[in-house]
């Protein structure tokens, strides 16, 4: 199967082979990676074929475009690439992250919130699917579990937590600890009624040495004002 990556990138597979290879791609991260590179390469062959287009083509295209409706954005694919399982990430953890993502998608019914969440889901999926994704998890307290998936290539980490108490006029705030002892806010956790925090994506993963969580006045603080309820070093 793997050897078909070249033919696929050159668009040289016929129906049956194409269908089978695409099925295979969904399970095979290394194939998908290779296909991306080979597709970019094939596109350069296309660029090299560049030639001056006919003069009136531009006008005709613009005419047609002004009469053509655009497609609505595709629904966010919540289907999870199986490769997470194969990456050696614990099934339980991956499943719980998936569940968090799915529940997040279902719970929101306000449009604006939904579109923000879609963006978030996409970012979460990108980090989780990164080839260099690393997982660190801990149980900082009875019934509380937290996990961090870090990807240096994406420069991001995804934090998720379960078993948190809902707070009334306070918020859980996540912090990234940086070399030299400084900390930077990574944002406030949105905790659902079941005590699970929606996955939070934070940038600056490359320089984070650890994460910490504190309880802060509603809306968060510029710097932590209470002792962390959880601190966790991240594996380099």
């Amino acid at each position, binding site marked *: 199967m793997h*050897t*078909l*990556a*070249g*033919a696929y*990138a*050159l*668009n*040289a*597979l*016929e129906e049956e082979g194409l269908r089978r290879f695409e099925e295979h791609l969904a399970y095979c991260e290394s194939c998908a990676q290779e296909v*991306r*590179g*080979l*597709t*970019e*390469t*094939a*596109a*350069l*062959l*296309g*660029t*090299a*074929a*560049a*030639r*001056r*287009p*006919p003069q009136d*083509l*531009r006008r*005709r*295209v*613009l005419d*047609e*475009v*002004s009469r*053509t*409706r*655009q*497609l*609505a*954005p*595709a629904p966010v694919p919540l289907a999870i690439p199986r490769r997470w399982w194969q990456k050696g990430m614990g099934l339980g953890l991956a499943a719980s992250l998936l569940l968090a993502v799915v529940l997040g998608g279902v719970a929101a019914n306000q449009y604006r919130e939904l579109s923000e969440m879609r963006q978030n889901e996409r970012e979460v999926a*990108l980090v989780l699917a990164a080839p260099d994704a690393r997982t660190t998890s801990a149980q900082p307290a009875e019934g509380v579990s937290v996990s961090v998936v870090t990807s240096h290539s994406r420069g991001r980490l995804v934090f998720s937590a379960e078993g948190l108490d809902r707070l009334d006029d306070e918020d859980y705030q996540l912090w990234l600890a940086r070399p030299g002892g400084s900390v930077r806010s990574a944002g406030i956790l949105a905790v659902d009624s079941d005590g699970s925090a929606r996955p939070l994506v934070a940038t600056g993963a490359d320089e984070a040495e650890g994460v910490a969580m504190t309880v802060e006045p509603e809306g968060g603080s510029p710097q932590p004002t209470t002792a962390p309820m959880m601190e966790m070093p991240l594996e380099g």
Partner: protein
Amino acid sequence: MKEEPLAHHVDTPEPAIAESPRLAELLRQVARGDERAFEQVYDRVIPSVYGLVRKILRDPAQSEEVAQEVLVEVWRSACRYDEHRGSPQAWVLTLAHRRAVDRVRSEQASSKRAARVAAAEVTTPYDEVAEEATGRLEQERVRRCLETLTELQSQSVRLAYYGGYSYREVARLLSSPLGTIKTRMRDGLVRLRDCLGVEW
């Protein structure tokens, strides 16, 4: 909505790396229905789209038709472009290649198709690279890298990509076993990728 003054229009070729985020940004604007942004996308991609389609179809009138379909498709589905999965150029050219090849393959049974195959056998369609290219540097780079391929790698890649032939057809044209052609397409592209320094 922000409108860019026309004078801002960039027509000097930028290095491909600096160029791609800009095209991606334009596509985002197109996805929001911005026709001005689309005009800029058009100007950026049309030479490659038309050139590639024309190379595959050869017939100027048909090529124009298909190039138009491709650009309208870019407009319609701009919101489906995902920059984490590839460059905007590759996305557009993949659309273009598929459209052109669909057109070619729908002629499968017709005599035209037979003539194409015959022509490919007699003449050498292998070493025709576009003459009126806009991106001459890129073209030169690709040409040099193609030269580092073995004959069979190069022919397999060119017949598939520029000729629009399926790998079965390529195997038949080159009188080689299917497995060999599959492998040559892959290791040929891999060698090209490394030679061109593609990072994806």
